[in-house]
């Protein structure tokens, strides 16, 4: 059923915009693929993100492309979003996406995942939360952590740009100590929240901190996180997508900033629980990775 919903009614085919036709014909839907989907198809295939309305050179837009290219089964994936820069991109995603409130994304995702398991016990439907650091760690921290405690089978991806970018550059809990932003005119007084560690302590079976500097790495992590969430329990990815606008960089400097931070605040961190480790090994054998 799920892929069929992207098929165009033959009666309307001649009036369909090219990008809709491409979505049917050239997108890398998992059922059409012999191997796992990934970054390598990006140049030739139709992407699930039509365009984006973020700033030129925004690393978050690039990161979203990597994430979407790595979804194991996009035609059976629901994405739950929150308020922030990400909510400007969501309307352009070809999948089922939800935006409801600022901060409640893991609560909404919990309800969706449980009902999809109830309504479709014989199908695997993935629920992925994609939200910024304000949504995930500040206003929504309770709901993020509680979904981990409850062992909800969802993947949470935080686009950590270390600032409230969409509202004009205010300090967030993920801002580095000392950084001057709006609402912190003399510099932030406390340390960046180690959310990837909180995720581990709170029951995530997979928690990673990384930058979006290496597309293949991002795709690999996303894929592993979603597969583990299906079978084992909650997974968390903290992904640095700097706000070049708010830290005074040019459109072509985002990648350099991420590479710098690969050795800094976003030095690669990975926690995998023993059950998740065993499951990943099994996935490898079955060719899912």
């Amino acid at each position: 059923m799920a892929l069929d919903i992207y098929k165009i009614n033959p009666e309307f085919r001649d009036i369909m915009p090219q990008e809709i036709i491409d979505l049917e014909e050239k997108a890398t839907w998992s059922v059409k693929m012999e191997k796992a989907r990934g970054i390598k198809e990006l140049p030739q295939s139709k992407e699930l993100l039509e365009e984006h309305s973020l700033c030129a050179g925004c690393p978050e837009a690039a990161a979203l492309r990597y994430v979407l290219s790595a979804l194991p089964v996009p035609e059976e994936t629901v994405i739950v979003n929150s308020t922030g820069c990400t909510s400007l991109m969501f309307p352009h995603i070809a999948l089922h996406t939800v935006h409801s409130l600022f901060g409640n994304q893991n609560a909404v995702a919990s309800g969706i995942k449980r009902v999809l398991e109830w309504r479709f016990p014989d199908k695997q439907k993935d629920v992925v939360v994609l939200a910024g650091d304000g949504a995930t760690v500040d206003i929504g921290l309770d709901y993020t952590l509680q979904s981990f405690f409850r062992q909800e089978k969802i993947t949470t991806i935080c686009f950590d740009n270390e600032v409230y970018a969409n509202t004009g550059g205010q300090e967030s809990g993920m801002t580095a100590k000392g950084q001057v932003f709006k609402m912190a005119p003399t510099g932030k007084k406390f340390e960046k929240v180690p959310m990837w560690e909180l995720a581990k302590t709170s029951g995530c079976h997979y928690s990673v901190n990384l930058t979006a500097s290496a597309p293949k790495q991002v795709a690999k992590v996303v894929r592993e996180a979603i597969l583990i969430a299906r079978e084992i329990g909650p997974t968390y990815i903290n992904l640095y997508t700097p706000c070049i606008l708010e830290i005074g960089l040019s459109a072509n400097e985002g990648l350099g900033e991420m590479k710098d931070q690969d050795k800094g605040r976003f030095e690669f961190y990975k926690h995998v629980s023993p059950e998740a480790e065993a499951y990943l090994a099994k996935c490898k054998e079955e060719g899912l990775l």
Partner: protein
Amino acid sequence: MSKRTDMTDTHNWSGQKLVSTDYMLFEAPRTKHFMTGSEVLKEAVKRCTVDASVSYPITPQSEAAHLIGELWAEGYVGVYFRGENEFGVMSEVAGCSMAGARTITTTSGPGTLRAMENFAMWSGTRAPMQLVLMARGINSPLTIQPDNLEVFYLLESGMMIWYAENVQELFDMSIAAFTVAEKPDVHVPIVTVVDGFFVSHTREAVELPDDDIAIEPYDPYASPLPPIDSEMPPGRFLRDPFVMKSNYISYAAHASWQFEIRSAVERSVPYAKHFLNGLVHVSGDEDAELAFVACGTASQQAKEAQRELTKLGIKSKVIKLRTIRPFPEAELLEALQGVKHAFVPEFNVVGWLANDVKAKLYGKCDTEIIGGPRVGGGMSMPAEAIIAEVMEKVNG
């Protein structure tokens, strides 16, 4: 645990025979029981083929929420868990409803206020879930007693609001509520209100149909918006990002959506009339010049006052509003014909119902609307208090 896929054309997943809401409410033979409001809500949910419920403890709705949990354990409800707080719960049930589930939850007083941001989102998402509100006072100072001030905060949330007077009405209304809320041309959330303790904890005689029948399941594919389940093409509105654009189209899109929610609530009127046997119930002397306009337990007390006034030779009638949203304007105007003075007794200190009645009827009838008596913080409203208010008016 039951599986939703165990459902057949004739029976739901727990083996109950599927029947129409008309049969359940109007035709099925009933037997007499003696139950509290919390217990009767369990009986209603049991007969409603409910997919999902999320709970959180707060007095006085906790028992009702436990009992729905028992139904889950017994296999009648598909998904059930305790959320982290009311804001979380109302988001969790929103997720359940968006994913295509018939969904119910319960809350009270401070819980309602904590969850507030969700309610406008529910109606904006056209999610047809049911919230059973067992009204209690709101802080500060701390109170757990019956007081319905919280309903005021919900009036313009875009949700339907029905008000049940007693245990029997709670049973019948909460079944009808799913059916009306899920009509494709309505499809907005519904709040079924009862006064906490007075109804939730009071044991009354109640007539119930057998529990081997249940109403037809919710069909998410008849929804005006596609359910979030990857089984329907994504809603077109999701692909047109007008949200952040400052132009006329974006303003108009938002405004027309808001108007549409209010229109959807109004479109529920014929369905509500049918299933509730009218949006207002009138009792007492038809030709009285004195009336009480009330909802919930206040109407019960007004009826008591009406009977006492009869003994004193004063004619009066009670107009009980069963729906607050949609506001039963036409029915109320009809019931007020010939009435000179209408009192609005309320279980809150602000008089939101009196204010609403005045606003809705302004310039449309000659009846003087008198807000009062009002009690709050859990005080009871004896008939004497109502009669005293009337006497003050009558004796000038």
